[in-house]
């Protein structure tokens, strides 16, 4: 049953696109309301659908990419668009195959910049073993839009025997993170040269397919997700809602780069809400957690860690602080703003 929802806003604000609650409600109560069908699952990274009679399901995912600045240490919007799309297929348990690309380019963009972006994109495709098989470009009137937007759709195949899903999560499961949290969000923020800040931090943007492939045949694997917009706290919230229980994260267990911690302190941000673009959050039955950790590390994720667990209790995300206190990690309300307080 679709229930009517009345939006508290009259206008779209940036908060409707930040991965938090406003965006979720916009998708649930507007897009999904109209577009609802048997295969559309707004919570899934990729959609599975019947297509042929063979052993594989066809998997489709799509993402739009906007970054300011277009280029940042560790990547650019071109490579990011490929990694982001491939990752959505990978965490869904699929092998990425084909991509489509839409480029919205702002009037006045330097061709040399575009050249670099598309080149990185091509490199990322080669590295990920995928091909862009359809594309389109539009040029936009000059705005404050930031030069270029990409929309990438990914098509992959998944063995029908794979049975992952957020609804497979159970109380007692362990939560793993394949690397440090928030590097991408923080690296992009630093690259903006706003607030007079600079650092040597690199984005973590990369394909997570090697990691997901390593985990895929682990019997206790329940669910994987790449914590992008909204960071690990937002994924933790999605897990808590799905299981109607408490997700407990342990502050001391979460790997966070020192530079990310420092920037978060300076600006009054919370690193758990900063985006990663090359990490996997995986939920695994407690008995398989150590094995999952070993496999993650074996796939090159030396900083992978078990960062929390799923518990009975109210639907919430709790952070156990270093002092043994507890703090609620609220659902992301809005884009972070620099604070003085």
């Amino acid at each position, binding site marked *: 049953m679709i229930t009517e929802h009345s939006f*508290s806003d*009259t*206008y*779209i*604000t*940036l908060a409707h696109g930040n991965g938090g*609650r406003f965006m979720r409600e916009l998708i649930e109560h507007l897009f999904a309301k109209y577009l609802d069908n048997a295969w559309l699952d707004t919570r899934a990274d990729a959609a599975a659908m019947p297509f042929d009679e063979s052993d594989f399901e066809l998997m489709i995912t799509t993402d739009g990419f906007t970054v300011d600045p277009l280029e940042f240490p560790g990547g650019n919007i071109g490579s990011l668009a490929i990694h982001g799309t491939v990752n959505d297929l990978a965490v869904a348990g699929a092998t990425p195959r084909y991509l489509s690309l839409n480029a919205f380019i702002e009037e006045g963009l330097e061709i040399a910049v575009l050249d670099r972006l598309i080149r990185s994109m091509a490199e990322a495709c080669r590295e990920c073993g995928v091909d862009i098989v359809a594309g389109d470009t539009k040029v936009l009137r000059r705005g404050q839009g930031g030069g270029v937007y990409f929309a990438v759709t990914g098509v992959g195949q998944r063995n029908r025997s794979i049975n992952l899903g957020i609804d497979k999560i159970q109380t007692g499961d362990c939560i793993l993170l394949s690397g440090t949290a928030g590097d991408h969000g923080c690296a992009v923020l630093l690259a903006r040269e*706003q*607030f*007079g800040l600079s650092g040597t931090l690199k984005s973590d943007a990369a394909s997570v397919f090697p990691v997901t492939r390593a985990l895929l045949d682990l019997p206790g694997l329940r669910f994987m997700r790449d914590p992008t917009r909204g960071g690990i706290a937002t994924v933790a919230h999605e897990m808590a809602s799905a299981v109607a229980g408490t997700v407990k994260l342990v502050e001391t267990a979460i790997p966070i780069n020192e530079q990310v911690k420092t920037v978060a302190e300076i*600006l*009054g941000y919370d690193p758990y809400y900063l985006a990663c673009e090359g990490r996997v959050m995986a939920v695994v039955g407690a008995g398989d957690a150590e094995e999952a950790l070993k496999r993650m590390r074996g796939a090159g994720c030396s900083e992978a860690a078990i960062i929390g667990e799923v518990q009975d209790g109210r639907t*919430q995300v*709790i*952070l*156990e*602080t*270093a*002092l*043994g*206190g*507890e*703090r*609620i990690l*609220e659902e992301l*309300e*809005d884009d*972070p*703003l*620099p*604070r*003085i*307080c």
Partner: protein
Amino acid sequence: MALDDARQWLDKIRALPLTSPVRIMNVCGGHERSISMAGLRSALPDMIDLIPGPGCPVCVCPEEDIYQAIQIGLNEPDSIVVAFGDMLRVPVNVSSKSVRSLEQAKAAGADIRPIASPSEAVRIAKSEPGKTVVFFVAGFETTCAPVAGMLAEGIPDNLLLLMSGRLTWPAVAMLLDYETPSFDALIAPGHVSTVMGPEEWQFVVDRHGFPAAIAGFTPDSLLAAIYSVLRQKLDGRIFLDNCYQQVVKPHGNPTARRLIESTLTIVDAPWRGIGIIPASGLELRADYAQHNARLRFPVHAENARKNAGAMPPGCDCARVVLGRIKPVDCKLYGVSCTPRSPVGPCMVSDEGACRIWWSSGIRTRSAEHEETTCT
């Protein structure tokens, strides 16, 4: 290391022979936030009640000033309003269909930009000479010092200020002058003291006989201060302790104090929900009249605007800010007032008491906090 220190302080506090509840007020949103981030409330013995006071410059910023900043952004041609990020989401008392915050003004087309330093306001003004840049300054002494520095260094002609500076100690003095103060001991604000010196807080001890300690913002410093005021109370030895000696020096930062005096002037000023507190505001001195947005722009608040400056109906922020009730005691808390759709300013800022309590997971009076009424 600091964490080990914090554990040691926690152990020392737990070892104290507390027999009755002690209400410790802090008057710094930064303290409140550190308390909440470190989960101190759940880590401390139940007997200790940490009470947030009027320590959030965003919460106490007059509604009229925010309304004025919004109207400048919406109506003055070629204006850019810059403000510290915290101010952008604070609502004013207009109908929900009108533009209620600086952030909504931005969505409606105004050029509103969050900044993290007064230097950015100067940079923006210099890079947009054709525009009038209005820097909306809400802040306590700590923040007014850099603003004074910015003014003293010289600012471009097209940079105006809408000053809502506030002094912290007059608000605490007012609380202590009540017949029944809502707390038993004070944690004094560390960064205010860094600028103004610890001496400003001596009156709490001398005139009122309340335990007081200046704290920094790490758990160890806060726990040291909590330990100090508890020991003061238990041992009956009342003095102003300084648990933040790394930066809180005698007489604070004399240069900063001199610059504040030479650029800003002390005025009677309204605190949102509290009313006017005498000699508690910092406004531009007359020499800066050319840069004073209050003087340069018409007062946009139509006289007809209902509830200008008032608290929203039903909102108990005033008493929350005064520490007279706790957030959960407000009838709107968690009902019509949540961080998602805040009614009062205390639910907006990360430093607002209601917001912080909500973020700590406290959802209803009846559930976990039947005992929370502190009047």
